[in-house]
């Protein structure tokens, strides 16, 4: 009797695990199947035509890549510097460290829509409008949704993740390494740059990859709108379209060719987030 109960517990747990894995497989196979079916070079390299019912998704890919690049340029160095400060300089018992650390931890779990609101309120309407009124006499240049504000907001969104990952790896570097380096006469900064950081490259890379994968799938509320243009959008104060916003905006339209486009978009997103 007890044996049957025992076995059924194990069986139930195993079934639950299998169910999760099956659902994962269904999603992956379904999207990869429909995606590869229609994947072609022209789809990846062309701009959309005929009101987004034909053509390719190049602007969206371009937007995503540019956005993620700008975001990593901002988030990774800042994140590493803050992590160095937390791990090497700040005293762990200090009031300042504990509060900021708690805030960073907390922000890692705050929904991205809240960051979108922050980006609109702070970067677009705060920083952007101030720049406009001081530099351009109120002409609308920076005070509108644009790629730099999108990238800046996403950098803030990913910053907590980078900080937490890098700080953990920095702390994992054994104390003896630092002491040996200091005992040889190296300064504190030299110790950090030459001894501690090389030891924790993997952590820095993990942080960067986490940031990129979160950023690529994110939906930059304050930079998107209007499917535009092509490569000419090199100016950073243009609005752009990213893969994720293309999927979202595509969903409001229902024409059959559109659904094909969306499948493709998904495919792209997938490839991107996996590598």
């Amino acid at each position: 009797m007890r044996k049957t109960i025992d076995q059924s517990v194990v069986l139930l747990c195993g079934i639950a695990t299998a169910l999760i894995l099956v659902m994962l497989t269904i999603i992956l196979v379904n999207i990869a199947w429909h995606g590869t079916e229609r994947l072609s070079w022209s789809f990846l390299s062309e701009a959309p035509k005929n009101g987004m019912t034909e053509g390719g998704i190049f602007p969206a890919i371009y937007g995503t890549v540019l956005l993620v690049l700008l975001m990593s340029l901002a988030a990774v160095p800042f994140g590493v510097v803050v992590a160095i400060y937390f791990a090497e300089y700040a005293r762990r018992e200090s009031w300042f460290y504990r509060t900021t650390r708690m805030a960073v931890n907390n922000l890692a779990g705050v929904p991205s829509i809240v960051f979108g609101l922050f980006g609109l309120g702070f970067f677009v309407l705060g920083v952007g409008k101030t720049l406009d009124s001081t530099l351009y006499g109120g002409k609308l240049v920076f005070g509108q949704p644009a790629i730099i504000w999108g990238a800046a907001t996403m950098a803030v969104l990913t910053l907590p993740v980078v900080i937490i990952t890098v700080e953990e790896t920095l702390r994992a570097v054994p104390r003896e390494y630092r002491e040996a380096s200091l005992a040889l006469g190296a300064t504190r900064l030299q110790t950090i740059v030459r001894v501690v950081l090389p030891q924790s490259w993997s952590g820095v890379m993990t942080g960067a990859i986490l940031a990129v994968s979160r950023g690529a799938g994110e939906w930059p509320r304050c930079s998107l709108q209007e499917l535009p243009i092509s490569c000419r959008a090199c100016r950073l104060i243009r609005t752009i379209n990213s893969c994720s916003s293309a999927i979202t905006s595509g969903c409001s339209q229902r024409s059959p060719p559109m659904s094909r486009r969306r499948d493709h978009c998904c495919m792209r997103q997938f490839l991107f987030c996996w590598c």
Partner: protein
Amino acid sequence: LKRRRLFDQIAEALILGFASIAIAIILLIFVYVGKEAVPLLWENLDGASIAGTFAPPVVWQPVSENPRYNVIPLLLGTLKVTLIAMLIATPLALAAALYTSEFAPTRMREWIKPAIELLAGIPSVVMGFFALIVLASFLQSQFGLEFRLNALNAGIALALAIIPIIYTVSEDALTAVPRHYREASLALGASKIQTAVRVVFPAAMPGVGAAMILGFGRAIGETMIVLMASGGAAIVSLSPFVSTRTLSATIAAELGEVVVGGGHYRILFFLGTLLFVVTSVLNWVGDRYNRRMRIRLFGAE
């Protein structure tokens, strides 16, 4: 040597400077999201005020001649979808965590965990897309539902998104239970399953609680999935088969079309503040639980 020391000092000052800029921006989030909603406290902008968000009639009609901003339909929708997601995700994720940490052979354990974490790597837009195109049609044809996009559909997709979180955190908690707990129980003659269910699971309970709280927090704030899969009608109904609108989806859908500084705009920031506060509290509580477990098991943090 003197020059080097000077160089070091400058570099350290720079580190400090950059770190404080980053920290300041992070702290500014708390200020900037709330700031836009604050005028609502004493002003009444085009029928929008804090008191009005709970006053009857219970309808969310932000764009009409006579706008009504009652958030109860949105709160109800959020709770409904989140609850469905939790009801599906919690048993599955906990059972899977128990299986991987206690029963599965070591070699299986090594690939099950990364596979389930792969689920976390699927961007929420893709998950929403899947729910919108594939899952919704499947559910409608299987159960003969009247509305294709409904709370159940969004709830299932949301469950898929939070399963990896609940699973990872609770699996970590279960494996963190010291070996001698298990050995003591086995030595007393308990079976492996009894040990898992009666000893290991209760010992890891605070960690499991933290996992559920963190999953709940993520589900409440998730935007893309519910925006795409829930249908988006602000209806007051307890049925899981009708179209539903949530807080986060409302912000995402309407923020692009509001007048900056107007009543509707401020109400959306108020909703954002609400989400922010709720998720912050949940994160904080989850963190406390996790720490309490460590203290209980190891005597220190």
